[in-house]
């Protein structure tokens, strides 16, 4: 059974890379949102720069998974484990891109924009961060009960985004001069909302891994 032990150790390595990518993604999200509130353009540029490291990590996961598929020709749960690793990595990479986009919004707003950043963005970020933790915990422990919880949290983020958007539309109507800033805030809210969707996808992936059946939680 030497071959299987080696395979399992390589799968474990892949899982560790995914967990690392998830942790770094969460850090990027939190940093990016903080730069919005702090008007910290320099820090925002750091976040943008950091994203390259996360892209590399995603590529490394892809390459290792493809090599494992080619060399081990896995079937059943082993195959699903690798397919799911590829999907989760891709979702995390997209989440990190969204964090990078929030940082870009911070750079567009600049250091002295003088407007109040909508408090919902921070609240949405807190839930999205919790979702990343849950998603990865669900993956690490193959716990599908957390997938439902992700769906509930995603609904909360969606609702917060919708009501924030309504408020911002009113602001844009009454304060047309601030339209650029309002748009950047709306974009940032949208980026956090998308991060929630990707975290929910991870819950679906874990369900597929464990049950062998697909489940759509993004309804």
């Amino acid at each position, binding site marked *: *059974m030497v071959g299987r032990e080696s395979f399992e150790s390589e799968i474990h390595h892949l899982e560790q890379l995914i967990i690392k990518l998830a942790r770094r993604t969460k850090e990027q999200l939190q940093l990016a949102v903080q730069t919005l509130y702090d008007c910290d353009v320099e820090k925002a540029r750091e976040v943008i720069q950091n994203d390259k490291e996360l892209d590399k990590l995603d590529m490394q996961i892809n390459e290792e998974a493809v090599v494992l598929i080619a060399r081990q020709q896995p079937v*059943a749960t082993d195959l699903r484990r690798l397919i799911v690793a590829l999907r989760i990595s891709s979702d995390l990479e997209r989440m990190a891109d969204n964090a990078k986009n929030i940082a870009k919004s911070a750079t567009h707003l600049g250091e002295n924009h003088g407007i109040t950043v909508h408090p919902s963005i921070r609240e949405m970020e807190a839930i999205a961060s919790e979702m990343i933790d849950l998603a990865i915990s669900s993956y690490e422990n193959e716990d599908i009960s957390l997938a439902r919880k992700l769906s509930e949290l995603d609904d909360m983020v969606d609702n917060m985004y919708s009501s924030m958007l309504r408020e911002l539309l009113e602001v844009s109507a009454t304060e047309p001069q601030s339209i650029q800033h309002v748009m950047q805030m709306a974009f940032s809210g949208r980026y956090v909302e998308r991060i929630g969707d990707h975290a929910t996808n991870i819950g679906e992936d874990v369900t597929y891994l464990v049950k062998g059946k697909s489940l759509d939680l993004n309804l």
Partner: protein
Amino acid sequence: MSNTTKNKVNINVKTNGVNEKISENNAETKQNIIYNTQDLNLWYSETHALKDINLEILENEVTAIIGPSGCGKSTYLKTLNRMVELVPGVSTTGSIAYKGDNILAKSTQVEDLRTKVGMVFQKPNPFPKSIYENVAYGPKVHGIKKKAVLDEIVEKSLRGAAIWDEVKDRLNQNAYGLSGGQQQRICIARCLAIEPDVILMDEPTSALDPISTLKVEDLIKELKKNYTIIIVTHNMQQAARISDKTVFMLNGEVIEFTETDKLFSNPKDKRTEDYITGRFG
């Protein structure tokens, strides 16, 4: 040993004929069932090699049988054309209906059965004769003498086995001069020449190189349009590539029998999962 031991009947003295005609209705209503195995048990003397096998094999499908060495897969295959009875001390209970007729019944003519059920073995076993004679041998035994008819059968069979183009200019050369992969396809052509309904294959590519293996696999996929194929293989990827259904056997029992897509992506039984993922066996 199970209770069925009390009722076991030595295959060499034939079964009691009660189930000679099994479920004619089955053949009418489910026309695509070619083999219906019910409660089959088989013993090699005191060794219980097959235990309560129940399987329905459909026409024009490729059914793969997988499992660790000694699980009974080759025994089951050889029961389907009753070659298993060549082993001394074999006895069976239960029934195997081939197109509705119990082939374990005393009235079954084994020779007739084997003209309908061809077999290809692990190691290519051409006769020490010319390519032509290898393929024409079966039809000649069955009384076909006219050369024109034999020529037609030989060409059709060699084409069917996807080897015509490689040997058409050297039909009179000894089959031993061919590569292993070519010899195996000659054996398949020899099998096709008697126009069977079913082809049993016992690890047909285990002695072949990867290219020859893929050629035989392509051939199997082509052959299923006209034949029913039941293949025993140790190569699980091969089972995954070529079969419609897969049977997983362990210690003489059928553990799981389902569509190949399902068995290799989401098996229901943990023992199947453990075997196909290499956790045991």
